[in-house]
């Protein structure tokens, strides 16, 4: 089967107060229809290919969340498994959240796919388990899809969540020219360099 390129848009509406979702996704591919959805490998907070809504401070007070990414599949059945963590960050007494979710998946041309890939940053940002996933998943998913799936992360405000995180800062120096910091297709939020966490800011 030839490669199929697609764009996915996930829209989530908040139906209960102070609901802030964090999404983790894994892409799967099958030659035949899987017998049980529950038996599929699902992502978790420490094992995922894509993450959306990872920076809670960027989401506060918002009621609608939209995330878009592109992907490619060479298998007849291409599926995404998603774990949606329902955070309220202690801002409400409600312990169970309500939400509305819509997924729109549309086929796109390879030209569109390539142009969006070129517009994204060259440095993929993925979870700490990426290496393990790449080793475990080559039969399931082409490497190009993995690379592309990380692009979705960059289109959000998220910072990478890693188990062994390390951050080093240096004394503040005069800002570099803007052209050196960003690629043209990235949103304003994702243009911020990682060191923008700052030397005296909360993390």
């Amino acid at each position, binding site marked *: 089967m030839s490669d199929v390129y697609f764009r996915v848009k996930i829209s989530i509406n908040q139906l209960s107060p102070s609901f802030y979702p964090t999404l983790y996704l894994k892409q799967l591919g099958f030659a035949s229809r899987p017998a049980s959805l529950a038996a599929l490998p699902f992502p978790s907070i420490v094992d995922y290919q894509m993450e959306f809504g990872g920076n809670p401070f960027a989401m506060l007070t918002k009621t609608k969340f939209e995330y878009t990414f592109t992907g490619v599949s060479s298998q007849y059945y291409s599926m995404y498994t998603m774990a949606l963590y329902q955070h309220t960050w202690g801002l409400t007494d409600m312990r169970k959240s309500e939400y509305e979710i819509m997924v729109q998946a549309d086929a796109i041309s390879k030209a569109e796919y390539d142009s969006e890939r070129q517009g994204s940053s060259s440095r993929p940002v993925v979870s700490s388990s990426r290496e393990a996933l790449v080793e475990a998943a080559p039969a399931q998913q082409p490497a190009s899809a993995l690379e592309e799936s990380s692009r979705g992360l960059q289109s959000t405000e998220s910072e990478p969540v890693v188990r062994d995180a390390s951050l080093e800062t240096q004394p503040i120096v005069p800002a570099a020219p803007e052209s050196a910091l960003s690629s043209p297709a990235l949103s304003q939020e994702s243009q911020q360099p990682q060191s923008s966490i700052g*030397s005296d800011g909360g993390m």
Partner: protein
Amino acid sequence: MLEGAARIMLQQTGQKDLANNIYTADPIDESNALEYRDVQQGATNAIPIAGGSCYTCWYFIKVQVTDPKKAAYRITVSQDEEAAPEDPQLVNGVPAQLYVAAGHPVKRRFILDSMDHWLLQAQVATGAVDVYVGLNSATVGPQDYLWKASSAGGVASLAIKTTDVRFHLATFYYVSVQAVSDADALINLSLKQQRSVSFIPNNHDSTFALTRTVRTGALLFQKFQFTSVQEQVKFHVF
């Protein structure tokens, strides 16, 4: 601290920190920090966090420097593995055959990533066993356990509901299997949890709301209804 001096502050919000939220858990200074350390140039300081200190916690770290122009530091968050040898892990859906010598408990540990109900079952081939499940590998047993099952009719079974107040997401539970009599035992230990999955069709609005018979505001609040862990994660496929 590579250059300059800093104060590192820690706060948290989690399932049991009912008075804290994402705003109040952001440490402003040492007065509202859970813990803090002063670090001088060339020195390294650490704040240890016990794994069992809270459930589903988010930690907030603030590093305060006096002069950002003269400060450089490296901060690391890492998982410190248990000092003692870890118990072998019991995987959901993969049975393990265990030989339990009399007087020598066999231990396993497991962790679950969804809040669906689960079943821990020990099928006894020979002998009789007691199965204890607790939070501490070193002490789990007759004196320290959350759940206990005894083999009756050849099966020791623990069925834990999703609403059990002692059941938490992403928490290591330790299983201790002990032979009841002087006779050794041979068992098949299995953990079963069926994940609830909601399929999302393309271009279709899907609403996920509470399922309850009476929909009143009061019922929504934990003080009146949910004494157990809330549903924290929902699984979808598209």
